[in-house]
């Protein structure tokens, strides 16, 4: 599944809702669904606020299901992240004046099994996430 959206805040809820609908075939728990929605919302919001700095641009959301795993990619072609390690530190934000909590990447990391971030200044940012659905039911 591939979804291309404009970088406007109205599309944040649309993006996470589409991804949530896409993964319902894996019969996720409400908690798993909330985890994935939050992670997608954080990634898309980052692209809008930090990647495109509120300007117009495209965000590509790719979703794949492999067995019981959901693989999600969120890509923007914005300004990129100069220091990814720093950006991923909990509570670190470049936008305190916008009351960003600095928890975006921390939430993606907490709610997904795998999080990888690639970025090149001036080119854009690619967030790659994976999560196995149905792990809890096996226990």
């Amino acid at each position: 599944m591939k979804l291309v959206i404009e970088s406007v805040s109205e599309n944040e809820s649309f993006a996470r809702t589409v991804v949530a609908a896409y993964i319902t075939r894996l019969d996720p728990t409400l908690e798993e669904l909330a985890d994935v929605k939050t992670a997608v919302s954080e990634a898309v919001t980052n692209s809008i606020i930090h990647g495109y700095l509120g300007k117009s641009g495209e965000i590509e959301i790719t979703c794949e299901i492999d067995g019981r795993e959901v693989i999600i990619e969120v890509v923007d072609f914005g300004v990129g992240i100069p220091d990814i390690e720093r950006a991923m530190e909990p509570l670190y934000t470049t936008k305190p004046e916008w009351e960003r909590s600095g928890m975006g990447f921390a939430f993606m990391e907490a709610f997904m099994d795998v999080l990888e971030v690639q970025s090149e200044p001036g080119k854009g940012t690619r967030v790659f996430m994976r999560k196995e659905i149905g792990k809890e039911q096996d226990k």
Partner: protein
Amino acid sequence: MQMEKERVHYEVHQNCLVVYVTDDLDHHAVLQLREYSDRLIEAGNIRHIIFDFTDVGFMDSSGIGLIMGRYKKVMFLGGRAAVTNVGDVVNRIFTLSGLYQIIERYDTVADALQGMKSRREG
């Protein structure tokens, strides 16, 4: 007091501002909520703030930023902040972010109003 139809409505009880959030609390919602809440706080006589989550099914880190920002405002006025009717989904976000270290949680708005009244100075 009805200020915006869908996303939120507000009530003022003495010096407590109650913000009923009635939609997903993401970056988009926060942009509007912040402005309205601050206008009411700055209009005067508000000391404490309560956010009610009865109708919130989703929240991300933008919501944390909103609550922290309003907490800082009332803190400078000697006030406190509380959240009420927090469901499981939102509770996980609050717990993970460490929000409960500075913000009180009550079951209902009535409980929160009572709690703030009982510890109100003067």
